[in-house]
């Protein structure tokens, strides 16, 4: 099936198999390998991207469902090589270690802060419920999002 998707501001028209997931489309067809796959049950959140402004787990969206949509991936968050304030906050606060869950964490953080610019610690932790990190114990991820909240406002 032919689909047209805008990814990080660029439009693509591609032929895809009906069962191709959005994450496969991003990684395999567009070579946007910043979006990672960590599970097969929509549990880990490593593949989180935004679709039409909402955070989604791209392993559980078919590429055809995103037809006509606008997708932002981790690669689209920084502009001209300059990190977005959320990315910067993760760096400043050591909000990542191995980096594998990080793209999903940053994308979900963007979603949390978009919907709630001044979240409490509890709201941040609740917002991260669908994203696993095995390295940081979430301590510095929560701190990073708190600092990003300040930086963005």
């Amino acid at each position, binding site marked *: 099936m032919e689909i047209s998707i805008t990814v990080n501001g660029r439009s693509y028209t591609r032929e895809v198999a009906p069962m191709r997931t959005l994450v496969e489309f991003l990684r395999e067809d567009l070579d946007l390998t910043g979006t990672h796959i960590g599970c097969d049950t929509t549990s880990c959140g490593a593949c989180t991207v935004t679709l039409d402004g909402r955070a989604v787990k791209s392993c559980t969206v078919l590429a055809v469902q995103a037809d006509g949509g606008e997708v932002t991936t981790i690669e689209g968050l920084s502009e001209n090589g300059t990190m977005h304030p959320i990315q910067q906050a993760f*760096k400043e606060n*050591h909000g*990542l270690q*191995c*980096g594998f869950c990080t793209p999903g964490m940053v994308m979900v953080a963007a979603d949390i802060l978009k919907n709630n610019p001044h979240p409490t610690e509890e709201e941040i932790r609740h917002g991260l419920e669908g994203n696993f*990190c095995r*390295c940081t*114990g979430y301590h510095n991820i929560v701190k990073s999002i708190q600092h990003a909240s300040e930086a963005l406002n």
Partner: protein
Amino acid sequence: MGEFIGKPIKRREDNRFLKGKGRYTDDIKLPGMTFAAFVRSPYAHARINKIQTGPAAKSDGVLAIYTGEDVGNYGVPCGWQVNFKNGDTMKEPPHPLLAVGKARHVGENVAVVIAESLQQARDAAELVEVDYDELPAVTNPKKAVEEGAPLVHDDAPRNMVFDWEIGNPKNEVDDAMKNADHMTRLTFRNQRLAPNAIETRTYLANYDINDDKWTLYTSTQNPHLIRLLMCAFVLGIPEHKVRVISQDVGGGFGSKIYHYTEEALLTWATKELGRPVKWTADRSEAFMTDAHGRDYDTTAEMGFDSKGKIVALRVHSEANLGAYLSTFSTACPTYLHGTLAQGCYTTPLIHIDVTGVFTNTNPVDAYRGAGRPEMTYILEHLMDTAALEMKIDPAELRFRNFIPAFDGVEQPGYQTQVALQYDSGDYKATLERALEMAGYKDLRAQQKASRENGQLLGIGLSTYIEGCGIAPSAVVGSLGARAGLYEVGHVRVQPTGKVTVFTGTHSHGQGHETSFAQFVADRLGIPIDDVDIVHGDTNEVAFGMGTYGSRSLAVGGSAIVKSVDKIIEKGARIAAHKLEAAVEDLNYSDGKWTVKGTDKSISFGDVSLTAYVPHDYPAGEEPGLDFSSFYDPVNFTFPFGAHIAVVEVDKETGKVDLKRFIACDDVGNVINPMIVDGQIHGGVAQGVGQALLEGVEYDENGQMITGSYMDYAMPRADDLPFFETDRKVTPCPHNPLGVKGAGEAGAIGSTPAVSNAVMDALSPFGVKDIQMPLTPEKVWRAMNEG
């Protein structure tokens, strides 16, 4: 201390990770790349009668299907030999790349399908028909050693891999235990855990027929070790023609140390096929086949005198090693476990007895802490239980038993009853600080008040020691290791004075690119941006043993320091020539050699250039400024610390709420406190996971019933509080940086602190012990069913 050591320098590797430009193995695409999918045993124990590959082979895009018969007798080895008490060699049956004749655990590779696309490979794998006869399986290690239990391997009677002991003569320990004024006895289960790095294992093998060379991209913690094992002990291919590359790796926690069958199989298959072959585990495969951690059944007794001093410790464990011996599996329940039984205490008599057992389950190996968390859980659970029984405050009981402080310089190291000699320690200091951070007295008062209000507040303590900086080669060699455990550090000064450091350790989250640059820049007195760290490629790094056992800085860092010092020493000879002075009259600091008492100096950059443009040069001196060193430590390092957990148990539901977690650790000198704190946080979260949430379960038939994130409870952000951390610094006396290692500390100390806190909360119900994980159901039952 210089400009960078001890500073929370932000990590340079974050730039690529945060922008989605990490270089993980699954991100790599090669021209002509093909994809593998495995046919795995659905049975825990089964005879394989026949494998029908015909229909699958005709499926779209299929290039090859291989079974055990095609691959032949290749098998992956175990890296550590542990003998039976009677001197017999441990049982070490072959671990084939693809099952031959029999499958011995659910998920074992039975066949592999290689196709043009991943989907085609997976579809075709579904069409491979295997005719099995299911056989009786055994999953419980205690049942496995009973007479008449099903045999996992015909030549391992009673499924025993080894039986092993360490410590004082058993009769002396038994006598002391008999004469003790108080004895605390507990049975434990250190449950099986799935390491769960968020990046699953992933391999890409490529054979170049023209050069007769292989490249294996792999998500490993130790590329050189994989190359050595695979070339010399599995496939018999020439080591110098194999390049192993492990760039960014998405977490390891031990599970990516080992040489796995799929790695060797892909390396074999790429030559057969003449095309690159990739395989990335899905999460179900990761649950079934990544080496698991823990899984010990233990009975332990601690004897005390009337003053609360420990007089004896006796431990017997069955360690479940699964169906095959993984690379370091046999070392974990023995030399990384029994040797930690001294803990931080002066226990005069200790006997540890461990039986390693085969079962029809996935192999078990080191997982963050590897044997040490299990022993710490045993000791610390005994301590808090004994404190309750003897009506002594658990902090006070520990103070009565601590080994007095020793720095390993003025005071000698501490000789334990279980073979090791601790390097330096001040156990009292970390516990005092942790108690202070917790506000311990107030907490106890608060607990008393809350109990009167019917609330269940619990406070749990844990003081731990760990053996890290793995390891002195001769020592581990005498204990059965089949490898040396030194490290390699290569420092190449470029003609412009810029420095490239090649380390045999591997970073999969630890931030070596930053922290290693910090101490190199300081020691050379040059800007940190002039130092680049390279790891993870056998063609770039001369050799190395990789990263595990909190060894990278203590062993790998020391190797780099040796090379840096050789550079400064040679540089001094070049500088002396240029400055027309004697080497003894020079002083090196701030990146330049200065003639003492004068302002005559030459910079590191000028000496570097001179070394590569040796026109005006000392006679007989080789050009260049490039040194590689091997560092073999003289001892392990022994970090330690004190952890305190505060929990509240919901009386109605049994849910445990972790309110606070306090950690005061001593990991020796610290290069980057931000990174060390991060390591502690992550370790603590995994330890809390073991205490409250996680556990791999097999049913009686050997089916894994926790094979996905829907069934296996990973710690989430809202399960955890902010952690309160601080540290003390007792330098390691035997390595040049004075560092001890921080990777595993959090996971070692935290589990018993949390479980002790839950037991403390439940003490009004007379509950002494519940087996981990302390789920709401178990806690509720303990409160309501006694």
